C-alpha cells in the first residue's frame, strides 16, 4: 500500500467519518472539523475529499433521508469500509511507533 494515497486532509476526513458514523455526511463533518481545528472548513472541500476517498475504496456511501433544512433534498451518508479501517490503523501505528521512539527530553515544546 502506497502511503501517498492518503493526504493529510483526507486522513482527517476519514477519521471524522469514523467518529460520526453512521450519521456522517459532508455538513456535519465540516462542522465537526471546524469545531476541532478552529478553522473554517467548507463543505465543498470536505465533499471533494469524501468523493476521492470513496473512489479509493476507503468509504462507501448511500443516500439518506431528506430534511426540511436541506430544502427537501436527501443527504449522502458515508461509512468507513474495511479497507478504510485498515488504512487508518496503518497510519496510526506508524505514527505511534514514531512517537514512542521520541526520547522524553527532546519533547518539542511550544515556547
Amino acid at each position, binding site marked *: 500500500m502506497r502511503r501517498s494515497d492518503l493526504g493529510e486532509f483526507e486522513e482527517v476526513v476519514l477519521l471524522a467519518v469514523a467518529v460520526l458514523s453512521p450519521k456522517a*455526511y*459532508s*455538513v456535519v463533518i*465540516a*462542522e465537526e472539523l471546524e469545531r476541532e481545528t478552529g478553522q*473554517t472548513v*467548507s*463543505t*465543498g*472541500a470536505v*465533499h*471533494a475529499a469524501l*468523493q*476521492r476517498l470513496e473512489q479509493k475504496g476507503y468509504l462507501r456511501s448511500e*443516500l439518506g433521508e*431528506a*430534511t*426540511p*433544512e*436541506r*430544502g427537501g*433534498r*436527501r*443527504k*449522502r451518508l458515508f461509512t468507513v469500509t474495511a479497507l478504510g479501517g485498515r488504512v487508518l490503523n496503518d497510519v496510526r501505528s506508524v505514527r505511534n511507533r514514531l512517537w514512542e521512539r521520541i526520547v522524553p527530553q527532546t519533547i518539542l515544546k511550544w515556547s
Partner: protein
Amino acid sequence: MPNATKRPRWPDKLLSRLVAPHLREEVLGDIHERYLLRVQRLGERKARATYWREVLAYVRPGFMKRQPVNYPNPTNMDMLRNHFKIAFRTLSRNKLYTGLNVAGLTFGVTCFLLIGLYLFDELTFDQQHSKTSRIYRAVQHRKTPNDDLTIAASSYKVAEESKKRIGEIENSARINRVGRANLSNPDNKNTFQETIAFGSSGLLEVFDFEAIDGDSKSGLNEPNSIIIVEELAQRLFNTTQVVGKTVIVEFMPDKPLKITAVLKNHPRNSSFTFNSMISEATIANSDDFAEWITNWDDQNFLTFFLLKQQANPEVAANKINNLLNINLKREAGHSVRYSLQPLADMHLHSENIEDGARNGNVEAMSQGVLLYIKIFAVVALFVLLIACINYMNLATARASNRSKEIGVRKASGAFQSHLIHQFLTESLVVTAISFLLAVVLVNLLLPAFNEFTHKELSLGFYSDYRIWIYTFVALVITGLLSGSYPAFLLSRFSPLLLLKNLKLQNKGDLSLRKGLVVFQFTISVVMMIATIVLFQQVRFANNKNLGFNKDLLLVIDINSGKVRSSAETIKTEFSRIPTVKNVSATSRVPGEWKTISTVKIRPEGNTDEHKIAYLIGADENFAKTFEVQLLNGRNFGGMSDSTSVILNETAAKLLGIREASAQQVEIPTRAMGGSYSPLNEANQPFNARVVGIVKDFHFQSLREKIAPLVLAYQNNPVYPIDYYTARIEGKDIPATLAKMNDVLTSIDPTHQLEYHFLDDQLARFYVEDQRRETLLIWVALATIFIACLGLFGLATYAAEQRIKEIGVRKVLGASILNLTALLSKDFLRLVLIANGIAFPLAWWATHQWLQEFAYHIDVEWWVFAVAGLSAIAIALLTVSYQAIKAALVNPVKSLRSE
C-alpha cells in the same frame, strides 16, 4: 425555521448549472443546510458574508464532470457524419440522377465561374495601386452657348496650383500624350513607332508601377530621363536590364534620354497602357511648355490627384473650382467646372467623358461597357439558377421513391430539422463535387477563353483570395438554394401517410416543378433569340453597303515629315507598282480608328450659329480609290483646289446647299475631340468654296448616324494628310507591301512601315459584339443543355412512374405512337408556354439593344420561329427517347408483379 427566502439565489442557479446532475441534489442540500447552521450560529450577516466561499468550493472539476451515459445524445459531428454517409449512399445508388445533377451543375458552375472571372477582372480595373481609393481623375466640364464638352483633362495651373493650395490634395500626377513618334536605340538602330508621353514626377509617386530594374518612384524626377516597360525594353535592347542606357526620340535628336527604370508590363486590368514615359522636366524649357504652365484654361494634361486620407473629393473639387474662378475670367455663357472621378470608376463609368490631353493620332484609353457587365452578370446568375432548378426538380420528382426512408426516419423520431439537414447535406455534397469538377473544367477552358476575351484570367492557388471567397460563397448559396426546396418539402409530409401509401401525391409540388421547367426554357429561348439577333446584326454591320468599297484597301500611316511632304512623289511611285490600282492621300480614312477632327462651318455671309461637321483632308484620287459616288459638282482638280471643299449629302443638307456651285463657306475653328480653337495665330478663318457633293458613306461605325462631313483638299489648313490608301489586287499582298515599303524608305530611311487593311479595321468596330455573340452562343448552348438534362431526368422519372399505366394501355391496344405522344405531351406543353413567355421578352430585349445602332436590322418573325421550334425539337428529342423506351417495354414485364 429561519426565513429561507433571504438566502441569496445566485448560488443555486450557478451550482445547478455547473455541478453534474447526479451530484446536484446532495450539493445543493449541503450548502442550504450549512447556511442555516451558520445563520443560527453567527447570524445572518456573517453567514451571508462567508456563503460565497462555501459555494465557490464546489467549483472544481470533481463536481462538474458529467457521468457517462449509456444512451448518449449524438453530437452535431456524429449527425453530420451520418448525413454524409447517407448522402454518399443515396448518390451512389442512383447513378443516373446523380450524373444528371452533377453534369448540370458542373456546366452551370463552369459558365458562372468563367463569366465571374471575366466580371471580376473588369470590376477590379486599376485597383492594383495601393492608394487606389484616394486617387481621382480631374474631369473638365466645359459649356459654351452651343456645345458642351466633358473631357478628362486639365490645365497645368489647375494641376499644379491645386496641389499647392488645397489642403485635401496630397499630390498630383500629369500625363501629356503628345503624339506618336519613332523611338530608337542609338546603338543598334532598333526603331519603333511609339506613343510619346510626358509624365510629371508625381506620376510615379501617386501610382504604384512595379519596376523590375531601377527605381519605380524617382524615375521621372530628372530631365532627359525616360521609363519604359519590359516589353519595349526587350524590343529595343533584347534585354530588360537597361537602366542607364539611352534612347532617342525622333523629334528631340539632340537630347538622348536616359532610362531610369524598367517597369513590369501593365496588367491587363489596368487602364494605363503606356510603353514609355518621358519626364516632364525634359521639355520644361520648350516654348510650348512655357505657354502651358501659365495657362488656367486649356486641356493639355491628363491629371490625377491623390487626396489625403479621409478627404472628401467633392470638397476638393469645389475648392478647385473656386481656385479656377478666382484666376480665370470667362465670357458670358461660357463656363468651366471640374469634378473628380475615382480611379476605380475610370474603366466602366467614363461613357460620356472624352479622353483628353492626347494628340489626335493617339488612341484613347480603352473602356469597359457597364451595360454588358450587367447583362453578363445576369446571364451568369441565370445559368447557375437553371442548374439549381434542375437539382430541385429531380430531387422533388424522386421524392416518392424516398418516401419510405423519410417515413421510417420520422417514425423513429427524426424531427423535421433532422431531415432538412440531411437533404441539405446531400445537395451540398453534390454542389461541392460539381464545383470541384467545374474548377478543373474552367482551368482546361481558360487558355481558350483568355485568348478570346484578351485577358489573363486564372483560377488557381495564386488567384486573388477574393475570387476564392466569392467562389466559396457561391458554392454554399448554390447548395442551399438547390437543396432548400426539396428539403423543406420532403421533410413536411406526415409519416403516417408516407408509410401507408408509400406515394406522394402533391399537386402544388407538381405545378411548381412545371413552373420551374417553364422558367428554364423561357430563359433558354430568350438566349437563343438574343444570340441569333446579335449574330445577324454583326453580319449586317460587316456586310452593309457602306457607300464605299472597303475591300482590299491598304492604309499606310504617314510616320515622318518627309513622307508627308513628298506626297506627290510617293503617290506616283506607288501607282507604278503593278498590283496597286489607285492611291489616295488623306488625313483620315472612312472607318477611322483615331479621332477625326471636327470644324465649325457656315455659309459665308450667313450670321446663324456655326454648324458642326467632321472634316477629312483628301486628294483628287479619293473618290476613285474609295469608290465614293460624286452626286453633282466636280472632284478636286489638283493643287489649284486648295480652297475647294466637297460636302457629303448630310453636310450639304445641313448648310442648305442643293447643287454645288462654288458657294462660299467659312471654317473659323476646329477641334480634335477637345474644345474648338482657331485655325491659326491670326484667327483667320478658312474660306472655301463648295465644288461638289458626294453620296453619303459610312465613315464611322454603324452605331453612329452618318454625320455631316467636309472633304477638304489635302493641303488644307485644318489637318494635314496622315495616310496613303491604296486599292490593291488580292494576289501576293506581301510582295506589294514590300515594294511600297521600299518606296517609303527611299524617301525617308527611318520611316517605320505601319499599315492596316481597312476591312479588318472596320470589323474592329464590331469585334466586341462578335465577342459577346460568341460568349452568348456558348452560354445559350449551356443553358439549353442543362435544361435538357433536367427534362431528361423528369421524363425518365415520369416514364418510370407510369410504367403500370403504360402496361395496361398497351394491353388494351394502345399503339407505340399513342403512348409516346401521351408521355411527351405534358413536357411539350411546358415548352410551348415557355415560348409564349420568351417571345415578348426577347423581342423587348433585342429591340432595346438594337436601338444602340443607328443602322440596324429589324427583328424578324422567323427568328422567333427558329428559336421556338428548335427549343421544341430539342425538348421533344430529349423526352421522346424515354417515352419510346417506356412504350416499347413488354407489358408482361411491367404488370407481372404487384
